[in-house]
């Protein structure tokens, strides 16, 4: 073979048109292409949080301000923008207080459940291969049982109340968080750089926390948003059944249960707490969707929106 000079790539041979491997798409550029779901969801969620927090400082009327002379006023009555319930309580006030309760329960339960659930998931993903199968199956079993069941069992034993509801939601969400963590955690653990880390002498717990957790954190953020939504729904359902938060604490679910007997007398009442729930839950779901698109575009391409 004739001796052909081997070309080398130097600064000269690379002109403007040569493609250089693009730097990882910066987070900023991705944020600029934010999908509408993120805006919408963000707006709804912030409204919810704002209203809930505002209730600590101000509500149109004092909490539980009974006003029997103004019972069941329709919306638009001066002084009561959205009307009053059967004890004369202002609807807006009740909604704000209900928001506060929903926020409390969902924050506490989601945070606790995520911490515990994610730890369990990481532990399972990093455990001995023999154990992983049965352990995952165990988690799956927990997953199949609805939260309401746990809540009812707990409520029967411990008595209804906010604490019981919160505990029940936590108990139900833990398998969810664990299950969602196991898959991706295992995937990350199978990556080469993890093996390299082992080679350096890093201990497994270190790897799990530092590398795996970091890598799956976008997923966890999305999960958190969705779990919030679920927690709000369950809390409302429990309150509706009378198993959750008890009077005099306000809750959207309990508000709704009261409207059931008033369907003929005051049909307008049942719309407001219901819509409140729908918008809040919708907000969290949209937020989760939007976050997923921003943080993990690959998955989002095949998903929704």
């Amino acid at each position: 073979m004739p001796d052909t000079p081997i070309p080398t790539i130097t600064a000269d041979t690379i002109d403007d048109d040569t493609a250089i491997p693009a730097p990882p798409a910066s987070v900023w550029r991705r944020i600029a292409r934010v999908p509408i779901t993120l805006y919408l969801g963000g707006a709804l969620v912030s409204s919810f949080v704002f209203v809930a927090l505002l209730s600590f400082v101000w509500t149109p009327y004092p909490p539980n301000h009974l006003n029997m002379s103004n019972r069941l006023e329709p919306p638009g009555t001066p002084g009561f923008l959205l009307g009053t319930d059967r004890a004369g309580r202002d609807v807006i006030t009740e909604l704000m207080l209900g928001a506060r309760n929903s926020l409390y329960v969902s924050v506490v339960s989601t945070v606790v459940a995520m911490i515990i659930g994610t730890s369990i998931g990481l532990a399972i993903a990093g455990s001995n291969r023999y154990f992983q199968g049965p352990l995952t199956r165990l988690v799956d079993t927990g997953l199949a049982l609805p939260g309401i069941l746990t809540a009812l069992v707990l409520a029967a034993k411990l008595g209804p109340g906010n604490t019981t509801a919160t505990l029940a939601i936590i108990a139900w969400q833990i398998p969810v968080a664990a299950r969602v963590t196991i898959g991706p955690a295992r995937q990350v653990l199978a990556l080469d750089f993890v093996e390299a880390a082992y080679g350096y002498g890093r201990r497994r717990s270190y790897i799990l926390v530092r590398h795996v957790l970091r890598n799956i954190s976008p997923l966890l953020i999305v999960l958190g948003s969705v779990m919030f939504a679920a927690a709000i729904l369950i809390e409302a359902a429990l309150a509706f059944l009378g198993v959750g938060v008890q009077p005099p604490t306000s809750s959207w679910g309990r508000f709704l249960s009261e409207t059931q007997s008033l369907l003929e007398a005051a049909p307008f009442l049942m719309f407001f707490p219901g819509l409140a729930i729908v918008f809040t839950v919708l907000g969290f779901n949209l937020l989760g969707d939007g976050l997923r698109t921003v943080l993990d575009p690959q998955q989002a391409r095949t998903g929704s929106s």
Partner: protein
Amino acid sequence: MIRYTLRSLFSLWFAAFVGSIAVFALVNVLGGDIVTVLLGREAAPVDVEFMREELGLDRPLVMQYLDWLRGALTGDLGTSYGMGYDIFDEIVRRIEPTLMITVGALLISVPLSLALGTYSAINAKKVRGGFVDVVTQVGIAIPTFWAGLLFVLLFAVRLGWLPTGGYVPLAENPVGSLRSITLPVLALSLGVTAVFTRYVRTAMIDVMNEDFIRSAMARGRSRRGAALVHGVRNASIPLVTVAALQFGQLLAGAVVVENVFVLPGIGRLIVTATLGREVVVVQSLALVIMLFILILNFLVDIAYGFLDPRIRDKADANA
């Protein structure tokens, strides 16, 4: 296939076993004494002692657990303290409404979800596909009990077409029975359909990207033809997995719906028992509901085996 079925069966019993332990632990280990709950705080010590003996609470936990299980299998679950009914009998009596609305909801939501989801996937890039996406997104945010109330308001109170509640047994009056469960089934189906449609959509979109879809199109199928003939069958695999997870939600919805529409089913029983602090009843009811969910999952597993030839071959090979 047989081996696969056996394996699923084993999973079923394993899960039931674990679940029963969990329920039992929740009731007996957490919180205070059952007796205190049942009798109340101010009960006289004599009564407390008597009840403890009667319920066998002085025996070791493991014995109590086994006795409970044995009771469940033989039909002796004890009696309600507050109301005096035999638990097992009551459960049997109340299964029908729960079954009716659960099965009814499944019959409606599964085909509907498949159709909507597939439609949405085929038209994913067009407005009509996106429309379905938006609608289902709202649908999953609607609490089942609120949907129930809305339906009652509209169809029962305003229009008077259907009853506001109550249940008519099938044997007594088929038409009346169906009428009494129409609104509950609709309310229940709403949530399930919304969730499931979204999963169908995602699964179908994933499938449409597969190579064999392109192969089918290369042979002359249209996009829609390829989706229907090849896509749906393959998408059903991940769907079936997801469907299993929905049964829990379905039962939870049933519990709520039965309370909104005052249907004398298991759901209403467990809530009443909970509010009455009847821990013994609740314990057994939880087990029953759990079993129901697990059996549904088992059936779905079997269907999975029928659908995907790779699964049963693998199971048979590994067994």
